[in-house]
């Protein structure tokens, strides 16, 4: 298992290299890291910076220089804030992972519950309602849903009942002077987590329902029924156990996409995570943040995909990793 994981990681190195070079090239072709300096009256500054950043060399050389710095932990300075990039990306990643953690945990629990209910009572009224809701959830643009939540659950109650604070906050993850895990944190967390959860619950519950139903119509479930196994045990011990491996795989792969994919949620709720960092850097053409950003996101995707494969192998005795 460990050897398989290591081999997979090694195999993904070329992919990351090619991807990062293309990104490097695309970002450099699009943005001028010295745009600010070009407007300055001091021509020596421009030349000095050009040499310091290695911009006078060829693109592959620059790329290698950049990779060298990246690997050594020297991720450069942001042209937007002037701060060092490594802690910036680190903080943003930490913030985003909080959202991802809560969101995925909530979504998995809800999706499994809904999937089990719908599969156990296929074509019942409850199943129809839940299936209908999941269609809505899949079709819902996340940013619009977030805006509606702000209006309906935060702004409207505040105005209607003349509250000093909205019942649920919609800016950041902590109020000034607060930190850690407290009520304030939870009041900040609800709206963004619900926003990012809706789509996940919708698609995961549909997937769960479909795989469970497939399992329930299988021959081995018929065998279990022929043995006289009760419905509940068939659902949990036979169907769920068989549906779990594909379900976990889908969850892991979709989670991978969240690390860099919460752009909209973080923008709407002003949460200083990876998405917000990306938008801010893009606006100002902050190449030295965008590149490591892409790198971190790509590595996260690869890790989560590896995790998906490993968990599949762990959950399905038929799969042997070699």
């Amino acid at each position: 298992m460990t050897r398989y994981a290591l081999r997979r990681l090694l195999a993904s190195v070329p992919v990351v290299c090619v991807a990062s070079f293309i990104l490097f090239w695309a970002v450099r072709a699009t943005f001028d890291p010295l745009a600010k300096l070009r407007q300055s009256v001091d021509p020596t500054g421009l030349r000095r910076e050009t040499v310091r950043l290695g911009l006078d060399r060829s693109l592959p050389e620059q790329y290698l220089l950049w990779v060298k710095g990246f690997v050594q932990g020297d991720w450069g300075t942001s042209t937007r804030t002037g701060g060092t990039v490594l802690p910036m990306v680190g903080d943003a990643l930490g913030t985003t992972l909080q959202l991802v953690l809560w969101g995925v945990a909530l979504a998995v629990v809800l999706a499994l519950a809904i999937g089990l209910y719908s599969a156990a009572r296929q074509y019942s009224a409850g199943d129809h309602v839940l299936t209908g809701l999941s269609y809505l959830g899949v079709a819902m643009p996340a940013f619009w849903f977030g805006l509606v939540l702000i209006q309906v659950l935060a702004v409207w109650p505040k105005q209607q009942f003349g509250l000093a604070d909205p019942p649920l906050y919609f800016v950041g993850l902590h109020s000034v002077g607060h930190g850690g895990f407290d009520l304030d944190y939870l009041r900040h967390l609800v709206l963004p987590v619900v926003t990012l959860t809706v789509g996940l619950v919708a698609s995961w519950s549909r997937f769960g329902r479909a795989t469970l139903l497939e399992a329930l119509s299988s021959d081995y479930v018929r065998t279990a029924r022929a043995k006289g196994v009760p419905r509940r045990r068939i659902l949990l011990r036979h169907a769920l156990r068989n549906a779990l491996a594909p379900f976990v795989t889908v969850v892991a792969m979709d989670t991978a996409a969240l690390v860099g994919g919460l752009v909209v949620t973080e923008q709407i709720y002003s949460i200083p995570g990876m998405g917000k960092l990306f938008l801010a850097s893009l606006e100002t053409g902050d190449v030295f943040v965008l590149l490591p950003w892409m790198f971190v996101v790509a590595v996260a995707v690869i890790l989560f995909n590896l995790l998906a494969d490993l968990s599949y192998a762990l959950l399905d005795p038929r799969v042997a990793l070699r």
Partner: protein
Amino acid sequence: MTQPTALPAPPPPVSVPPTAPGDPRISRVVLSRFLRHRLAVASLIVLVLLAVCCFGAAWIAPYPRNAQNLLEASQPPSGTHWLGTDSIGRDYLSEMFYAGQLSLAIGLGVALLATLVGTAAGAVAGYLGGWPDEVIMRVADLFLIVPPVAVLAVSLQGLGPSPLTIVVVLSGLGWTLIARVVRSRVIQLRHQEFVEAARVIGASGPRIVVRHLLPNLTGLIVVNVSLSVAMAIILESTVSFLGYGVQPPKSSWGNMLTQAAGLIGTSQSYLLYVPGLAILVTVLAVNFLGDGLRDALDPRGRQR
């Protein structure tokens, strides 16, 4: 008295070309299966109505495009302005129709382009195998690594956000999905008897792909067009909302929401609901339509 022997055993599954488009009987079956899917039929009607309203906006919309009347700015819904007016005095209903033109056109454009590219790439990769397969699929893999919104924002920043570039960039993202699905189906079909038979009687490679494989992919392709329309409309509106997509004075449902977002907490917050509902209804209808088409055309192709 008898040696152990068997009755006629169940016949081995015969591989027949699953669909033969052009056969009038088959098309009738497909049509009747589709009509039985009531939600899909209703969705088709909704989509046609939406398309007529949006693309016929020049005749149907109560006010001309971008007609501003600052004296009537920020009005609530009334008999003259069914959905009220925005902050620069444009009739919101007319705006919705004109914005829909762009949203729908981009959605459709992306779906067609992405499907075309994706089907071609997937068919080539699946049929040829070997290094062309490797190259195409590794390129497709690259797109998995970076979040689509980020790719979109970077490339639109670089290429400039004209509707045409939006279509091209969105298709650049969308083709990978279809390529994967088409590839795996082609690999599956390639080993079936009717394709082997065609090869045995000496049909050329391209002829096999065009005459034998593509017709069997019709269902898959049609369904994927609908899925990519839905995906494209959501992505376009998201990117436009973030300010990297369709730029004012052009409007799409996405950038109408950017403006409406500023109205949260004001007396005009209801303007938030209209473009969002338009997107939601369109995407929902497209998805239902896709489901109906899949059930009608490709009953065995039920996937995730």
